[in-house]
């Protein structure tokens, strides 16, 4: 996981760089929360461009960060997900509350 904060837009881009499962999710969670709480962004974008695999651990990850961001007054968006990740997220119903976008690899 890498992240970059754009102060002028109050935008935090969290770029996920690993496969997301029970094994990797704990570290991502810790680092993402630290960045959100440290920067107090108005918007958080999770960039999935280099994520090749995600199971239900990723659903918990996104819902958990959504709750924290929401509490701190920020919105959450998900960028550049592949079809199989989309399928997992669709099943969970969270796409009803979290928007999917495509970005020009700003965090890249």
């Amino acid at each position, binding site marked *: 996981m890498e992240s970059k904060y754009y102060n002028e837009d109050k935008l935090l881009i969290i770029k996920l760089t690993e*496969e997301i*499962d029970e*094994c990797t999710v704990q570290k991502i969670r810790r680092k993402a929360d630290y960045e959100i709480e440290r920067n107090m962004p108005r918007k958080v974008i999770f960039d999935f461009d280099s994520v090749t*695999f*995600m*199971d*239900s651990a990723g659903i918990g990850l996104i*819902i958990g960060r959504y709750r924290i961001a929401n509490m701190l007054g920020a919105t959450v968006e998900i960028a550049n997900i592949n079809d*199989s990740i989309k399928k997992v997220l669709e099943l*969970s119903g969270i796409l009803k509350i979290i928007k999917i976008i495509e970005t020009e690899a700003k965090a890249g």
Partner: protein
Amino acid sequence: MNKLNNEMKLEFLSKSSNEAFARITVAAFAAQLDPTIEELADIKTAVSEAVTNAIIHGYEEKKGVVKIRGQIIGEELIIEIADNGKGIEDIEMAKQPLYTTKPNLERSGMGFTIMESFMDEVEIESILGIGTKVTMKKKIKSHTEEDEENLQFTPSC
């Protein structure tokens, strides 16, 4: 017809660092059926769910062995994932979307729902204190009739 074409077995310790190993191994086994990328992703995700469940719910903090058996029968992939962990009290309840006994750990309760929608069939057997076995089946339909006949009787390499 329905003759067994191939079989594999895999055993590993209940560490979540083995999840990637497990799903990649099963995907490599399934590759003989010439699945599409989407079918392979479905299989990997379903395996990851069942293996994670064995590790975090079956064995919890304890050390145990997760066993996987894979079979290819005709054009069907059959994967059994078993643990000798604590077992499931109410299987019907466990299968409900959003049902989880560990909400505090940011579990979403979607594991069985994912397995059921990504595979053709999912069967759960569990005995409290003895363990749990999840059997999942998926037909890999991407062959022509002719390919299929070849697959039945000749190895693919």
